[in-house]
């Protein structure tokens, strides 16, 4: 035990925790939630995103740096609906931070506060990476983001009572700008209505549901499984019967499959940002939808 005590002493001196000035230390599983917390929290929060737009949020390793971040977090905000089951439970178990465990005020699952789509009637591993709780990629519908923002604000107010008015003011301001932006996006996206689009993975369900775009097929034979040549050939056959306008993929997915299909069929392959940082100029939630819609419209030409 003496050795342990010495270790503790030496290391507490070496790595003395530096003071955190912000009232709330927030660990976001994905960049979109970091951006939303930043909108509402402003200077009162320090935020960290566990993933970037170039990483697949289904497949993240519970690496040491993430354990260290969760250890110090006041609030953990994630998509939920099983998107992070491969790594978040392990982080929470290893970090020894009681305030951010499921059920506690410091644990916020965004998808729990909105209606989810694609809830399967049955689930089986042979179906690929399906989520029993429904599709977790809820941030791609701005109307759902507006709802989540209200719930998130309440949560931040509970965690940081001194900032109640500050957060409320910022949420009101965000909501005004956001609602205005939503009607502009809807106007812009009218030409996309009813169009058929090939997707890489079922990341786009909420966006397409909002803009009334139809999914013409997926590049993944089954969710989470890599594309095969045979699957592409089948897809090409299906597209002959009922053509699509374009194929879309995200920054974290390999463009190869979409480009291959483009070669085979003459479709345009479009890279969409999917989240903050997923394309140049996408540095907040507003620019995420600005650029997503702009690129989709570009795909129509």
């Amino acid at each position, binding site marked *: *035990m003496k*050795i*342990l005590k010495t*270790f503790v002493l030496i*290391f*507490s001196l070496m*790595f*003395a925790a*530096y003071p955190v000035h912000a009232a709330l230390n927030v660990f976001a599983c994905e960049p979109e939630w970091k951006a939303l917390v930043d909108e509402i929290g402003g200077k009162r929060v320090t935020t960290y995103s566990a*993933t*970037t737009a*170039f*990483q*697949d949020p289904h*497949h993240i390793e519970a*690496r*040491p*740096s993430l*354990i*260290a*971040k969760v*250890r*110090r977090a006041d609030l953990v905000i994630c998509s*939920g*609906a*099983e998107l992070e*089951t*491969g*790594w978040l439970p*392990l982080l*929470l*178990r*290893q*970090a*020894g*931070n*009681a305030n951010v*465990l499921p*059920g506690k005020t410091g644990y916020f699952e965004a998808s*729990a*506060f*909105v*209606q*989810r789509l694609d*809830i399967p*009637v049955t*689930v*089986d*591993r042979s179906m690929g*990476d*399906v*989520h*029993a*709780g*429904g599709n977790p990629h809820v941030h791609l519908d701005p109307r759902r983001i507006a709802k989540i923002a209200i719930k998130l604000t309440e949560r931040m107010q509970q965690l940081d009572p001194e900032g109640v008015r500050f957060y409320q003011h910022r949420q009101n301001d965000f909501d005004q700008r956001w609602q205005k932006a939503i009607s502009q996006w809807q106007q812009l996206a009218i030409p996309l209505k009813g169009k058929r689009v090939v997707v890489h993975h079922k990341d786009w369900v909420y966006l397409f549901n909002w803009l009334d775009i139809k999914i013409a097929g997926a590049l993944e034979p089954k969710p*989470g*499984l890599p594309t095969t040549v045979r699957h592409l050939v089948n897809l090409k056959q299906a597209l002959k019967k009922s053509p699509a306008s374009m194929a879309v993929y995200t920054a*974290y*997915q*390999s463009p190869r499959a979409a480009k291959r299909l483009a070669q085979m069929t003459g479709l345009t392959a479009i890279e969409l940002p999917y989240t903050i940082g997923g394309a140049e100029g996408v540095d907040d939630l507003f620019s995420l939808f600005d650029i997503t819609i702009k690129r989709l419209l570009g795909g129509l030409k």
Partner: protein
Amino acid sequence: MQTKKMFYGKHIPIISCIFLMGAAQVATAKTGFNPDISLILDGRYGSYSNTSSYALPGFMLGGEAGRGETGLYLGHNELIISSNIDDMFYGKFTTAITDENNSTVTELEEAYIETLGLDYGLTVKAGRFYSDIGYLNNQHGHAWDFVDAPLVYRGLFGDQIIDDGIQASWVAPTDLYLKLGTEILRGGRYPAAGSTDGGLGAEAYFVKVGGDVGTSNSWQVGLSHWKADVSGRQAGVHAHGGSTATEIATFYGSSKVTGIDFVWKWSPNGNAREQSLKIQAEYFERKEDGRVDMVGSSPLETTTYKGKQHGWYTQAVYKFMPRWRVGLRYDKLGSRNNGSDADVLGEAGLVTNGHTPSRSTIMIDYSRSEFSRIRLQLSQDDSYSDSDTQLLLQYTMSLGSHGAHKF
């Protein structure tokens, strides 16, 4: 990296009903009170150029140590049950079902509880668990990147240290990951053996430090120390020059192991889906002081024994395209053992006769999904003086809701 996304058939109607009722507040679909149950299926084929019995000169082998069987055989088929017990505790139970000499043997590998909400970075674990020393020790065999354990794990730990006890660990509130931990163990199992000191025969200490370099790299370095008062550790597997081993080398004394481990992982932009590289290395050193008896000999053959053994391995595993990985590993061991009776030391397998055990391994594996893997491995094994070319083929599959693996 494996996930638990699935339910069991009978719950689906209930769960679907909950969602159809529009209960959007339900935090996750994991509303069942059933624990996560997963089954690991492991089957192998082994082919060896050498038929003489396995030895590791300078090391008294025991535990699970030894090379695999010849031909088709089953590996470690495991049943794992785990769950959060309540808001304060998590529990895990692992049993391995193996075949030994045509009879089915059940081994209890893990049975522990762990605190969840202790706060301040503290976690306490109690029960039977894999010790957290080294990097590979607390990983299940099915999570290894090669079919078999590194030689240093085989030689010092009998593949892995599993013991009964209590572990306390603390994660520092720093940006750099720092974890300190200690274990008080019963020491009743190999390599401690004997449950001395009133059933508190072994202890362990570890420090782990880790972090990221940019978004593409992450690393971890660990230091660990394990010691035990050994009372009657038997060499389970040991070559005895053709004769039937009725005399069993048995060690009494103190044993201390110190190790350093290192792992570095790279993937482009931190996205391991398409491509990744993992480099790891570990070094261990063991000092032992006591005596070795040849139990079963008459009159009893005995010798004093002062041993110093060390070993290291380094390996790299490269995922060059989705589903496919290749790996390289190199092992090397060394020892310097002294005692009053060189003949007895020799019988106990503690004399090297100038041989330095080493092994080179190459493997390639294919994972259809994160739940299935098929692996081919080729080794040039110079564990002992007869060089052995080994070919191993293995499948590892996991059924059910399997928890995530550690870094």
